[in-house]
């Protein structure tokens, strides 16, 4: 893999970095430490700026009128847009636009017209509903929400858990059991409107990060047959492909707070004097900073390697899992060490580190727990690969 950035990639990175450092970070000084949105006027101004750069909704393919930025560049950008206080779960406060769920590109013309295109125009937003109270890591067995065919529609009963944004979304992609006897081939994806009778957000679930998630219930929720996404019974494969793909920028985004925390710790180590010498002169501190660098760089290389394979159309599930593990765990360790270097200041809300520390903890569970990623890798190692 060629690690050198192309001139076009470098230009994009420079523009994104400038926007984060010169526009986003100064605005955060006036926001609550746990805020995840900008003031409306600031948001509108920055969205206009991003559109001028040609980077709005950068993952949208060119045939749909988007910039069509490739997965390698998206992975590099994810590392940049998360380099601010709210960056892990609200990268750049979404001024780069929320790209539509990738599954919709494979939907029927009707679904594209009704959901995909309005999402690209910023008129609608969607959520993703896979996990249930019965589990999320093993959806083929855990999904208990049932859909039963009734004429031209399906009647759905059950519920979903950990659905970020479902309370504000216009629609959701939910994975439902349509054939209880068919195992993973009995799971079907539906696109549901959130104003469908029977759809309820039972509660907003408070978690470690600043942004909540939701718990949903579906009671006799009637959904038209044409709202099936992909094939009936093809939901599991659809979810699996998309989750593996999303895992790459998800991994890379973990590095932003780690890089930021490391920078703050380096500056502090150079200026803070204890017992007559700067912290930077202490070997204990030097080793922490070196370990930070090791974690950041190994995560970056793993994420770019996975993106490179995905870009070339090669199998990348193994590499995506590896990137997810290295980035989420390495970034967590880096922020932890940086807080240790900062001392009491690192624990306070005067600095963003305590927020990153809480939010990075979620990344070891979100998008598939790291233990499941290790299972995925172990299967490959034992059955297919020799290790390289």
């Amino acid at each position, binding site marked *: 893999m060629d690690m050198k950035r192309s001139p076009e990639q470098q230009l994009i990175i420079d523009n994104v970095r400038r926007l984060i450092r010169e526009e986003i970070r100064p605005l955060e000084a006036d926001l609550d430490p*746990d805020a995840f949105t900008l003031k409306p006027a600031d948001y509108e101004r920055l969205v206009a700026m991003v559109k001028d750069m040609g980077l709005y909704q950068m993952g949208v393919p060119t045939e749909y009128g988007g910039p069509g930025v490739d997965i390698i560049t998206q992975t590099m950008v994810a590392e940049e847009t998360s380099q601010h206080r709210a960056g892990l779960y609200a990268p750049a406060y979404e001024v780069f636009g929320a790209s539509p769920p990738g599954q919709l590109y494979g939907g029927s013309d009707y679904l594209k017209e009704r959901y995909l295109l309005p999402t690209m125009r910023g008129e609608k937003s969607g959520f993703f509903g896979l996990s249930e109270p019965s589990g999320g890591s093993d959806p083929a067995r855990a999904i208990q929400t049932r859909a039963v065919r009734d004429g031209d529609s399906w009647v759905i009963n059950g519920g979903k858990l950990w659905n970020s944004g479902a*309370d*504000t979304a216009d629609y959701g992609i939910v994975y439902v059991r349509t054939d209880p006897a068919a195992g993973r081939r009995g799971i079907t994806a539906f696109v549901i409107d959130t104003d469908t009778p029977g759809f*309820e*957000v*039972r509660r907003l679930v408070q978690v470690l990060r600043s942004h909540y998630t939701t718990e949903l219930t579906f009671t006799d929720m009637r959904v038209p047959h044409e709202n099936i996404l992909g094939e009936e019974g093809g939901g599991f494969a659809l979810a699996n492909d998309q989750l593996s793909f999303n895992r790459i920028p998800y991994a890379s985004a973990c590095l932003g707070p780690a890089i930021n925390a490391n920078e703050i710790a380096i500056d502090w180590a150079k200026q803070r004097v204890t017992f007559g010498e700067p912290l930077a002169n202490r070997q204990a501190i030097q080793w922490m900073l070196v370990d930070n660098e090791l974690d950041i760089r190994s995560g970056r290389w793993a994420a770019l390697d996975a993106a490179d394979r995905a870009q070339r159309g090669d199998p990348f599930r193994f590499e995506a899992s590896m990137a997810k593990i290295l980035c989420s765990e390495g970034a967590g360790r880096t922020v932890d060490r940086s807080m240790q270097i900062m001392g009491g200041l690192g624990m306070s809300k005067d600095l963003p580190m305590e927020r990153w520390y809480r939010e990075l903890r979620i990344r070891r569970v979100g998008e598939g727990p790291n233990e499941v990623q290790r299972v995925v890798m172990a299967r490959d190692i034992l059955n297919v690969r020799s290790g390289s």
Partner: protein
Amino acid sequence: MRIRGDWVPWDPTIDFKLLPGAMGVFEIADEKRNTLYIGHAGGDDAFGLRGELYNVFGFPPGSDKWNWTHPHPGAYPAALRDQAHFYRFEVNHQYYSRWIEALTRYSEDFEELPPINNDPAIEQPPKLGRYHWKSEDAS
């Protein structure tokens, strides 16, 4: 989920040490227990819930001798102080998302924000979502 707990009438003689200096969410009501305002004591609010409640209800005579003063006195509209009678609060480290949750619950039940939360001088919440169901006691 609304903010839990019984309404407590404001007592200006309360020992301030009984009010937590922690982060959290609070709700203010008038004499008839109608909610006027749902707020939060956040990470950059000095003195946490204690400071915010005093700032809403006003500091009693003699408080100038206390060993702390609010850095932003009068941050809330006078209309809130004039009507405020009851309060309740919840210490919660996730004050920001809990604040949004409480506002969402209220706006779903009553189809509007609490009256003082609509004041432009007050921090406006991000876009609120919908539950698609009302609380049993919502009017």
